[in-house]
């Protein structure tokens, strides 16, 4: 199988798996205990914390382990707005966020908060002057993702962070898709909080981290035994944490080389598809996008049937985000780019990974051509497009 859905999740790196293994059966101690077994677990956790801190340029005491990207987003957003609700009730976000942020904002709207959804341009990027216009004295939080999970576009986080600082507003970014793919440095990006998740960078599912800048205080949203400074209580997932740390370490060491490799494959695949298939388009910005993200649309065909066709050719791809395949509506991200609904339904996302091979590109391009051709032959819309 050729797996090209790394933005949905990625395989666990064998080195990551090996690093985790001892923490299930041998070093199974509870990291809060005093005896050596517990201390071993604690040490492994703290060494992992250093690796996570390192990949984003943070201090170790600014990293909270969580159960993944979704939980990190929830803690950051709810944690700030619950704590500072007396200062104001406005939250500013974008209209292309992952559901982990989007649905959290929708929930808060039902509970007395007011949310401003900034639009994006046709290229999928937020305009910072829209942000400046949207800020009011009621704004307590800005949350805008670093790289989008569907179209891979990278937001001007550093500029947004500057604006947030000038206005003394807390700023959170969901960097689940960008960490390990492009350089991420919390100091340079001017962020107060940042979410990341292990399973997007060859680590295990169900583990992630939230960076919280020193001095920023969030209200806990779950309560319990005081682990992770009381911000994320619950007996730590030591093996998962070790896996996350190892995944970050490997990603940091290979970042530039891997980004280069993925960009080359990405651009070759894009070039060939756009030049060899009629009425094929790339969604999102051509260069301000993740090295591994490709998002096409093809006039006259629908994404799900394209994904199924590619599956029969042993290629794993997706229509948009993995979550949207359960819904019927066109992707909110593609709609935000100003596409018509029928255009947004015809999208195909390919997200590459380090185990993809340059030699596979030809097969993938030919398979897409074949599938598009077959589906267009049976499409009532393609005929109309021709006349």
């Amino acid at each position: 199988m050729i797996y090209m859905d790394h933005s949905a999740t990625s395989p666990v790196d064998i080195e990551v798996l090996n690093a985790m293994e001892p923490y299930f059966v041998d070093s199974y101690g509870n990291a809060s205990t005093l005896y050596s077994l517990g201390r071993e677990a604690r040490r492994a956790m703290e060494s992992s914390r250093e690796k996570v801190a390192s990949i984003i340029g943070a201090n170790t005491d600014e990293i909270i382990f969580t159960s993944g990207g979704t939980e990190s987003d929830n803690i950051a957003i709810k944690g700030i707005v619950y704590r500072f609700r007396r200062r104001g009730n406005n939250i500013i976000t974008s209209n292309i966020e992952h559901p982990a942020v989007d649905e959290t904002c929708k929930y808060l709207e039902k509970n007395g908060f007011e949310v401003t959804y900034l639009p994006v341009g046709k290229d999928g990027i937020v305009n910072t002057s829209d942000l400046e216009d949207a800020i009011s004295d009621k704004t307590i939080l800005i949350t805008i993702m670093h790289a989008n999970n569907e179209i891979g576009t990278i937001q001007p986080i550093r500029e947004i962070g500057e604006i947030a600082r000038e206005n003394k507003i807390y700023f959170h970014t969901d960097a689940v898709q960008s960490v390990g793919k492009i350089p991420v440095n919390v100091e340079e990006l001017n962020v107060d909080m940042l979410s990341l998740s292990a399973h997007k960078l060859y680590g295990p599912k169900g583990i992630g981290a939230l960076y919280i800048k020193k001095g920023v205080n969030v209200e806990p949203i779950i309560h319990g035994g005081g682990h992770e400074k009381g911000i994320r209580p619950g007996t730590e997932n030591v093996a998962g944490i070790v896996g996350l740390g190892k995944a970050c370490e490997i990603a940091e060491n290979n970042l530039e080389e891997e980004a280069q490799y993925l960009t080359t494959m990405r651009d070759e695949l894009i070039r060939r598809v756009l030049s060899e298939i009629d009425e094929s388009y790339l969604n999102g910005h051509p260069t301000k996008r993740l090295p591994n993200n490709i998002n096409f649309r093809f006039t006259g065909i629908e994404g799900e049937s394209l994904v199924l066709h590619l599956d029969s050719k042993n290629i794993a791809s997706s229509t948009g985000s993995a979550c949207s395949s359960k819904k019927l509506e066109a992707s909110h991200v593609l709609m935000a780019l100003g596409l018509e609904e029928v255009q947004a339904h015809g999208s195909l996302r390919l997200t590459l990974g380090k185990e993809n091979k340059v030699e596979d590109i030809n097969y993938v391009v030919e398979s897409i051509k074949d599938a598009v051709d077959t589906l267009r032959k049976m499409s009532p819309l393609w005929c109309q497009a021709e006349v």
Partner: protein
Amino acid sequence: MYSEKVMEHFSNPRNVGEIEDADGVGTVGNPVCGDLMTIYIKVKDNIIEDIKFKTFGCGAAIATSSMVTEMAMGKTIEEALKISRNDVANELEGLPPVKMHCSNLAADALKAAIDDYKKKLTAKE
């Protein structure tokens, strides 16, 4: 998430295409998912002697189009009109709950094609 029968019809759809001198043509769309289906029928002595479809839609939409054309082929107009939305889904060994409307699309497109045929018939008379 799809049954094998659905995948089989999706991978090898029957009766794809158009009928140029069709006796009836029906097009229906679903506003939520944006899918669109056209069915063409050729009728002789009250029997559907040829039927073809064109579909823009999900895997289930393509499979149900294929299935409904197979079910209607060779049937009398009255028999074909009895093919219900559920019949199509049942013949495909079920559809996921969110995909039930895809079979509605197929059954409705067949009805629309038959209605069109009947309208043309009365116009001729």
